[in-house]
């Protein structure tokens, strides 16, 4: 595989469908060639609810990307999210009959053993992400290959979800005659481009706040410790504004983007926001403090739910983060969101977009595109890792591909 391979990342989001075409460069770098985008229809909370409409939107986005990047798209990497995704950590153990050098086959076996856990019958494994190896009691061995040993253990972070719901996304893409390279957890894709390996080593929480869901991923000592999806996103903020201030959804969305702020209503400057008359809409004056209250309550609750969930699964981790919280995704552009997160987590917070990405289209360094760009970076890392093992291995991986690289 040459270093100038083309990668296509497809994110079927609740707000927009985004296709990023990127070219792999040397040193794990990617360079964006073009971005196709359409507003979503038929998607709720990150999942397809109207297959025909959603498929049509994906088609438009793909055509848009093909035109902009001037390439023909055949293979895509697809991001997936949804409230049905669950995660857990498990250790696989593989004992050799006698001490010898560890081979690739042993690493595969220990991973298979780690998956021997009970998940609901309707679920399938999406990711098995390596955290660390232990060889004969020697903890945190980065790469045991070719070392001599007898008892090989490995900790994995396992993500699983409901099979039919994951398949629906695949069906939508496959009906467009596109070949799916792999399915990737949305937050895992985003993390590839919004945090550096150094940050992962220090410990960081990545929160990707999209339209329909908020996906989060916890890194500690360079490895994924926890991941999750909260099926609440920017759409909920818009809906709250619409219900609370009695505005049509489109008006509420525009108000959120133009005037919305997640700041504490006690610090609100107050005053009124005047909405003009439009055909079918009678203008009105909105109290700014009420708007701030609606948004603040929701955003704060979202962070609190995420914090509580992380603390439940990985106690103490929030206090030990060396690199704080990183927020990305379309919702990250909401004013004051970093302050609320900092208050809830008690950690420094950074709102960021894709970094270390090249290409003519610098304008796409916008938190909205983190997942789709991250997919191409992920693809770049995966294919580079697979070069020595060849194509056959890649074919046998199937869905729920194995991301053997430590720290993902």
């Amino acid at each position, binding site marked *: 595989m040459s270093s100038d391979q083309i990668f296509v990342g497809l994110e079927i989001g609740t707000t927009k469908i985004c296709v990023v075409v990127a070219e792999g460069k040397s040193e794990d770098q990617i360079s964006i060639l073009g971005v196709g985008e359409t507003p979503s229809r038929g998607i709720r909370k990150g999942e397809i609810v109207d297959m025909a409409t959603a498929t049509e939107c994906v088609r438009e986005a793909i055509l848009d990307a093909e035109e902009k990047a001037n390439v023909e798209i055949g293979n895509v990497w697809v991001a997936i999210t949804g409230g049905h995704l669950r995660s857990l950590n498990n250790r696989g153990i593989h004992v050799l009959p006698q001490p010898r050098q560890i081979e690739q086959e042993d690493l595969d076996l220990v991973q298979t053993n780690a998956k021997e856990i009970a998940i609901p019958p309707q679920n399938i494994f999406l990711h098995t992400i390596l955290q660390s190896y232990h060889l004969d009691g020697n903890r945190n061995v980065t790469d045991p290959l070719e070392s001599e040993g007898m008892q090989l253990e490995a900790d994995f972070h396992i993500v699983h979800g409901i099979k039919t719901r994951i398949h629906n996304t695949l069906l939508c893409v496959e009906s467009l005659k596109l070949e799916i390279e792999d399915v990737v957890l949305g937050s895992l894709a985003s993390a590839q481009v919004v945090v550096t390996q150094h940050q992962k080593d220090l410990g960081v929480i990545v929160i990707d706040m999209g339209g329909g869901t908020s996906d989060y991923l916890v890194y500690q000592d360079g490895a994924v410790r926890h991941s999750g999806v909260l*099926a*609440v996103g920017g759409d*909920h903020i818009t*809906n*709250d504004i*619409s219900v609370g201030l009695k505005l049509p959804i489109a008006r509420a969305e525009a108000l959120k983007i133009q005037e919305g702020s997640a700041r504490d209503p006690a610090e609100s400057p107050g005053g009124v926001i005047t909405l003009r008359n439009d055909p079918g809409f009678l203008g009105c004056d909105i*109290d700014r403090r009420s708007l701030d209250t609606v948004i603040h*309550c*929701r955003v704060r609750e979202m962070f609190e739910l995420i914090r509580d969930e992380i603390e439940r699964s990985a106690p103490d981790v929030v206090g030990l983060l060396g690199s704080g919280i990183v927020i990305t995704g379309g919702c990250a552009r909401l004013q004051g969101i970093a302050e609320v997160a900092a208050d809830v987590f008690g950690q420094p917070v950074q709102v960021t977009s894709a970094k270390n990405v090249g290409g003519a289209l610098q304008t796409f360094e916008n938190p909205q595109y983190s997942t789709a760009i991250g997919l191409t970076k992920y693809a770049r890392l995966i294919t580079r890792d697979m070069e020595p093992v060849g194509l056959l291995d890649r074919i046998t991986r199937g869905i729920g591909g194995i991301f053997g690289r430590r720290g993902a």
Partner: protein
Amino acid sequence: MSAAAQRRLIVGVGNAGVTVLDLLALEEPGLRGLVVVNNDPESLAATVVREKIEVPPGEPSDGFLAIDVDFGKLAAGASSLVLCGGLGGATGSFLLPALAILAKSSGITVAACVSLPFGFEGKRKSELADQALEKLYAVCDAVAVIGNERLSGGAPSTAAVGEAFALADRTMLACTKALHGMIITSGPVRITRSDMKSVLGLSGARVLFGSGKASGANRLHEALEEAMESPLLIQQGKNTPGSALLGTSTVLLLLQGPSDLSFAEVQAAVSGIERVAGDRCQIKTGVLASQPAGSPLTLSIIASSGGGSAPETRLQLAPSDAQADSPVVAVSKEKKSPSITKKSPSSLPKQTQGTLDLDNYQKGRFDKSQPTIVAGEDLDVPTFLRKGIKLSQPRRS
């Protein structure tokens, strides 16, 4: 009454009780063991229930002496008794505890479904009702109390008085049926009398009740959804279906209906309740799948929150506790005084219309999507609404 051996009686007392039994008789014409007791000849003349005991007009205490022998015989020939009626009025407040004591003395299982009066019915009624309720708790094996005031909390303030009473009647009907069903459950999946006692034997506890009925492929989920939306299962200030169940220690779940009820459906019902009540909640399930396949499925949920202790006086009663298969449930409902005229069942308005509309509106665009429920809270409902924060409304210019 000799043929009455092993009869499971449902006795409606006072005008409220008669109304509920009328509804029951119309809904399930095949159901036997229905008896009405009242001191209002007009009400007894109009009822469709065939077995009637007329209490002579005048003071209920005097009238009771005229019927105690009759009722005693009736009770002695039965194996269980569910009383239903409204507390607060002169008739129900006296007769319900009196009949319960009489029945209990012949050693059968006694349960009661009673209603407490609405706030607007006055303090005097409320006091009478409380006194009667204490007596019932002391006698009955289980008492399901339906607070009409709390029930009406879910209805819009513009609801007609008649609508409020009708809602109370429907709720009491469903609750009486559920208690009766729980008593007669048998087989491996059943609710024992001690289960009922643990939930419905605590004086002062708030009874949480909901029921739903549906048929078709998705019957379980539809019935569960309807049950969860019952006003008594929604915590005040919240609008999440089933929110009042959060944190309860025991929930009684009764599934009544078609013989093709599947194991998966029972499982889905239990996990549906667990989702709102939390993992620590113990769910006691009873299944009565005796009707032909395809008939509608009724799902009832009973739980209680708060409350004090089991009354000590219970110990003085006849030792019917030993009959494990004949649980006694006492349901006391005090929803209307005997002077209120009976409504015809066909004119009953739909039960929870107002509440439902409100709920959908609050969820806005997420109205039709699968709810996101975390720790019993429906996250699709705006946060400020769940926290009860008031907003100043926009001024139209």
